[in-house]
């Protein structure tokens, strides 16, 4: 099947969802003529050998993470379950066959079979049997009724498997037996939802002589075939060795330390095979960046200084914000391409700017509302290439629309080499332009150890002037970094460490921003990242 970009949006909007097959569906008996190879001894095998019985096919590949959970559960909750009972309630024998569709890396397939405890494995390396069931993803689970001579009936088919219960229900109904397949009615114990859960932790730091920025995050996530959710708590810190401008006669050098706790959660639900609904929300309390904290200190020293008192009109800042988002994703190419629309609303109470004249102190706007609308395409145009394109529009209080674009391509250069490419930019009236480009090259020394080099360049024309005559807007900046990292995979645990020198080079400040010459000075930074994840 081939669909070109001009068709994609219309396909997505009209909808081309193919529902999963549930209930009875008779297929050609030619299915039994497809010959595969047994993993045990390589002998030819086919479904014809199961005449008179029930067969559950579990299509898997070693690289499919959900397959690991599903295959293990099928062995325990289907094979063992029906073996112990001598078949389904009508006494019909039930067989489980795990079908491997991957021909490369047989050692990794062997490890998958061993770790999941698969008893009966067939190889479908050319995907003939998989294609016969119109497979659109992995794992693919199919239950077949072969009790009637010359007839093959699909009683259950699912891309992904949310739980064992519905599968057991379909099996138990064959031959007039009663259904015992409800999710929590197993005699061998509860048949729960098949979920992959993980904990992720991240620490990032960016340090220069006078600025110390950190971000720590812990996230828990849980995913099933149709539902996923995650919740993350974070703590960011900003440390500033504040130095006033030489022209700032009210200013004094001091130390500024700020913390920003945050929490965010996302949920995802797949009501149909190719449709996914998305929602999220988040909250933070504190300064979002070091420049806001710097400005706040400047205004505090100007208008809330113990030596001159508090200027009427000055209010201490208490920045915080929240966001909510919602979206929808449609797979316009089964398992190979999707389009996603996401809209979010963000409300930020910021540390405002101030202006003083003969009329007194004027406090700038301190409440920003933003609407962010993003359209994302992700695609697998080649078996070695995955691409992504983000188009974004941001509408913020008293600002013109900001248009952003971000394109990325990940290329598998070989078994051990991966190249990542990234480029993007943003524009906003009247005169803001930004662009960036980056790359990363990864090399797998072994399945357990990976090395990578990563670099990026960024440039913009300077931020939009604010509405006050006294400007805090950043002048144009160039920034770049290049560093090295290492990743270690040990079973279900992954650890990553990355470090890079990072440089920011600002254009000279003008008269409007002269008081922030120390803020907008060139800096050399050290950027570090440490991350860990563990899958249950």
């Amino acid at each position, binding site marked *: 099947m081939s669909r070109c970009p001009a068709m994609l949006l219309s396909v997505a909007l009209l909808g081309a969802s193919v529902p999963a097959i549930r209930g009875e569906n008779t297929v050609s008996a030619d299915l039994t003529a497809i010959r595969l190879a047994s993993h045990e001894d390589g002998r030819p095998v086919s479904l014809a050998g199961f005449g008179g019985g029930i067969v559950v096919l579990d299509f898997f590949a070693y690289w499919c993470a959900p397959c690991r959970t599903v295959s293990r559960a099928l062995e325990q909750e289907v094979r063992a379950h029906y073996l112990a009972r001598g078949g389904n309630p009508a006494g019909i024998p039930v067989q489980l066959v795990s079908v491997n569709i991957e021909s490369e890396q047989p050692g990794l397939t062997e490890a998958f079979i061993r770790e999941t405890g698969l008893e009966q494995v067939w190889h479908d390396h050319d995907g003939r049997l998989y294609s016969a069931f119109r497979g659109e993803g*992995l794992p693919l689970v199919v239950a077949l009724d072969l009790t009637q001579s010359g007839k093959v009936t699909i009683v259950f088919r699912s891309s992904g498997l949310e739980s064992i219960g519905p599968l057991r229900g379909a099996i138990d109904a064959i031959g007039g037996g009663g259904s015992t397949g409800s999710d929590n009615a197993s005699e061998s114990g509860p048949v729960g939802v098949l979920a992959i859960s993980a904990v992720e932790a991240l620490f990032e730091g960016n340090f220069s002589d006078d600025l110390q920025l950190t971000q720590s995050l812990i996230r828990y996530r849980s995913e099933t075939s149709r539902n996923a959710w995650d919740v993350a708590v974070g703590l960011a810190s900003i440390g500033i060795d504040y130095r006033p401008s030489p022209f700032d006669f009210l200013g004094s050098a001091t130390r500024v330390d700020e913390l920003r706790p945050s929490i965010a959660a996302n949920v995802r639900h797949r009501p149909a095979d190719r449709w996914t609904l998305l929602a999220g929300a988040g909250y933070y309390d504190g300064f979002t960046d070091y*420049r806001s904290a710097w400005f706040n200190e400047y205004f505090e020293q100007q208008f809330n200084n113990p030596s001159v008192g508090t200027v009427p009109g000055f209010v201490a800042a208490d920045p915080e914000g929240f966001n909510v988002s919602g*979206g929808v994703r449609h797979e316009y190419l089964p398992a190979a391409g999707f389009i996603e629309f996401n809209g979010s609303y963000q409300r930020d109470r910021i540390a405002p700017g101030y202006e003083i004249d003969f009329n007194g102190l004027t406090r700038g706007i301190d409440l920003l509302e933003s609407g962010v609308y*993003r359209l994302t395409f992700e695609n697998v145009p080649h*078996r070695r290439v995955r691409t992504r394109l983000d188009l974004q529009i941001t509408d913020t209080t008293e600002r013109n629309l900001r248009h952003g674009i971000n394109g990325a391509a990940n290329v598998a250069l070989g078994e051990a080499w991966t190249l990542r490419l990234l480029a993007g930019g943003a524009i906003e009236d009247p005169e803001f332009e930004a662009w960036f480009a980056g790359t990363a090259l990864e090399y797998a020394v072994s399945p357990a150890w990976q090395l990578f080099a990563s670099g990026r360049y960024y440039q913009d024309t300077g931020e939009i002037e604010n509405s006050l005559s006294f400007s805090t807007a950043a002048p144009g900046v160039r920034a770049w970094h290049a560093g090295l990292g290492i990743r270690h995979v040990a079973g279900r645990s992954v650890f990553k460490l990355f470090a890079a020198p990072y440089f920011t080079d600002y254009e000279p400040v003008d008269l409007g921003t002269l008081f922030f010459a120390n803020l907008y000075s060139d800096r050399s930074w050290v950027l570090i990242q440490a991350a860990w994840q563990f899958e249950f």
Partner: protein
Amino acid sequence: MPGPSNQNRIVGTAAGRLALVAALLGLVLTGCRTVPPTEQRLVSRPVMQFNERPAFVTNSSLLSQTEPGAAVSGGGANSGCTSCR
């Protein structure tokens, strides 16, 4: 200092450039071909995916403080292995 009309022309040129880049990238990145799951071994490696799992991504959230024009990502749930359910 350019006047308003000159500014509009500058902005119009920039917007036009961005639209052109978006169109070209769209053509290149969205593709025309379905790669079946049986051929997705390489693109299903964790390092080949676009997600926010910190052990595998190389971008830094801290850089948005110094690179305000690059803050494109964020928001709702992100993508995973397209062939994995």
